[in-house]
């Protein structure tokens, strides 16, 4: 990765920043944040004002990809958030560290929350329903190609797969069996660390990294199968430091990370009669290159896949759910609307990122089902 230099105010990030595209607010762009960051007091903002403005970032990372100077909005924000923690971060920390206890509780409570209340309460009922949703009837039967003999593997279920959508994890493990993978002894991983990082909870992130690496080592470094795009990104971001400087181990980790879809794309597919007429693929901001989720979905949808729009962010934004829920909602609604612009009722939106699933299901009209591609596979 090339090293970041200084922002030259060229404005290329405005072309891709989802917050700017939806709100038209220049002060939210990475360009503005870098400019404000570079101002010395008394010309600039107070530290408090700067932090609260700069913190309004969805963490999609598109600016960094488009920046000729390799500047990264999310990294600036993560560093800022880590410097001084506030109540929102404490809540987010709690949310991520105790999902087994808090998520079902929040889901139960949200049933009583009126939609007329401001965000994040207003959408919470639908959001919790989306988090604990059930799959619709599946419409594609996939028999994986037998690829492995005796290769040990573990499923990295991610927070959503672990605590809300066990059905995704169960399906994924069935596919792993079909691939001929041998399951390593069951063990629990912590959060991949990605959400902690963008929220500036860097100690938490480092702890999660260490815990996951130790867990993986303890079961003899098996393949790690992943079905959530953001988990995949989070796990790929582990650094040599997380492995105590052991380069061999670090390389082994990198090569053990396997998106489940990459193993399924050449499986045998039977399409069932209830396949919807239109399918929409939502490409997550953190989709890897190549995007195997898309390849798999192209294969099962054939000509029913609407043209893929590659530059849409769902607006989930991690801690933004608490820090600026209105902005997150505005981006989410705009994304859902753009995705479904040419779709008829009954169309299904599929994606490969757990957070995108929840965010889009919360903000899409009830005419459309939104889910993970695992939802519709049998």
């Amino acid at each position, binding site marked *: 990765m090339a090293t970041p230099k200084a922002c030259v105010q060229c404005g*290329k990030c*405005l072309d891709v920043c989802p917050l700017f595209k939806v709100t038209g607010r220049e002060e939210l762009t990475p360009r503005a944040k870098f400019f404000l960051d570079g101002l010395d007091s008394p010309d600039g*903002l107070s530290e408090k004002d*700067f932090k609260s403005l700069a913190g309004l970032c969805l963490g999609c990372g598109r600016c960094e990809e488009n920046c000729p100077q390799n500047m990264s909005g999310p990294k600036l924000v993560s560093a800022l958030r880590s410097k001084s923690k506030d109540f929102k971060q404490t809540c987010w920390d709690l949310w991520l560290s105790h999902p087994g206890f808090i998520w079902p509780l929040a889901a139960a409570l949200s049933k009583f929350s009126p939609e007329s209340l401001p965000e994040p309460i207003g959408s919470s009922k639908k959001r919790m329903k989306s988090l604990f949703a059930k799959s619709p009837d599946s419409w594609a039967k996939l028999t994986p190609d037998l690829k492995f003999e005796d290769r040990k593997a573990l499923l990295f279920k991610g927070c959503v797969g672990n605590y809300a959508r066990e059905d995704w994890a169960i399906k994924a493990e069935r596919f792993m069996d079909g691939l001929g993978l041998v399951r390593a002894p069951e063990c629990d991983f912590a959060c991949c660390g990605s959400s902690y990082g963008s929220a500036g909870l860097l100690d938490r992130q480092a702890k999660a990294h260490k815990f996951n690496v130790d867990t993986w080592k303890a079961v003899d470094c098996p393949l790690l199968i992943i079905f959530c795009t953001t988990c995949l990104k989070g796990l790929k971001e582990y650094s040599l430091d997380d492995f105590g400087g052991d380069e061999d181990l670090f390389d082994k980790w990198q090569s053990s990370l396997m998106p489940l879809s990459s193993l399924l794309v050449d499986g045998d597919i039977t399409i069932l009669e209830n396949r919807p007429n239109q399918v929409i693929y939502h490409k997550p901001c953190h989709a890897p290159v190549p995007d195997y989720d898309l390849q798999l979905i192209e294969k099962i949808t054939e000509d029913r896949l609407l043209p893929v729009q590659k530059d849409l962010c769902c607006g989930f934004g991690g801690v933004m759910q608490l820090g600026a829920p209105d902005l997150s909602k505005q981006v989410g609604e705009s994304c859902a609307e753009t995705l479904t612009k040419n779709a008829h009722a009954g169309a299904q939106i599929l994606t490969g990122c757990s957070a995108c699933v929840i965010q889009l299901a919360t903000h899409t009209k009830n005419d459309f089902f939104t889910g993970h591609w695992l939802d519709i596979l049998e």
Partner: protein
Amino acid sequence: MKTYPDKLSRAQHKFLKKLFPEGDSGFTEGELLSCGVDASRKHAKPLALVKPSTVQQVSELLAWAQKDRMPIYPRARATNKVGGCVPVKKGIVVSMLGMNSILDIDAQDFVAVVQPGVITADLQKAVEAKGLFYPPDPASQKISTIGGNIATCAGGMRAVKYGVTRDYVLGLEVVLPGGEIINTGGRTHKNVVGLDLTRLMVGSAGTLGLITKATLKLLPLPETSASMLIGFKDLSGCLKGAGAVFGCGILPAAMELMDHNTLKALEMHSAVPWSSDTGGLLLLKIDGSQESVTTDLLQIEKALSSVITTFIEKGSGDEQERLWELRRVISPAAFNLGPDKQGEDVAVPRGKVAQAIEAYHEIGRKHGVIVLCFGHLGDGNIHVSVMYDKSASGQSESALKAKKEIFEKTLALGGTLSGEHGIGLTKADYVGMQLGQTEMNLMSGVKTVFDPHNIMNPGKGV
């Protein structure tokens, strides 16, 4: 010396909030600071930010501003490099980004009617989908607006064959200080009635009025195009190559030059395709029908066989964009050679390019700064970037001295201080080097007719 309001009165604040309700006006520090900077990296803080969505709003705003002697600073994507958007006299920043609809694309009349906030590349995509063509292509086409392009008379790489923005503006709707809405030109491709106010507005950088609508000329979309990146040992090789191309009677759509320092900056930026003995590059594009492009390419290759080249790469269709991306990233890649940049975009008569570039390098050597020359060889518009390090002692002064000498040399060769970026803040002090007093007086008279109280983008040169 004219004075402008130092802060908003309660009544002024109330007026703006009422005319621009909800999120369409901004008064917070974050909003004000963010809308006071542009790609020149100069900045100032206005008193308010407003975001009109209708011409009526703009008209009411300019009527009020005239009455209250309030400076108005038009702003689009703020990619101009001369401080054109910087609110040096405070006042109101008017962001035109919300007026961003394409109103009409007419394949019979060969015109498009657009609001100023439309992103240039979006318009190009939309007209191309109908087999039409809007040629002006500043390197910033994906990140700048039609309104900004018109206000700066942006040029682009295709200027050598197709001309610049002014050649495609048929008519404008402009709101004048005082709020009156005027229409210049029209929908016809020819029009000689009256003085040419359209041309006067194009390139006036927000100092005469606010552009709220533009009628643009379109061409039929050429069937295809192809590009060629050609390496030479040095600058004189490049110029011989260019001579050979023009000599065979072909007018390329674009002909760009990159000197050895430019190559160095690109090499430090990303992987490059040329061989290591390359000290200068020509990048050219030809367009037309499939047959003509094929024969033109053959002819150019034949012509080039008479000069010494180090490397040739060709591309057609989408894949030629890879070659052009190299050209587009020069501007940011230049920072690999020094943390600070003073960018000039002088133009000289086409026959004087070699002499000019050699002189610019000599000036750089003399002052201990790095000079990088690249740009539109085809029309003599050379970007001269002086790279230096502000934090090193004496470098800022050296850069300034170099700037002055670059200008002097340019003018001595019969050139101009700016081919496309304009004057704004960064070059305002130098205009007198080029323009005579009588010409300046005439211009300031014209300015007074449009803007008697100097509320439009005050503090800037054009």
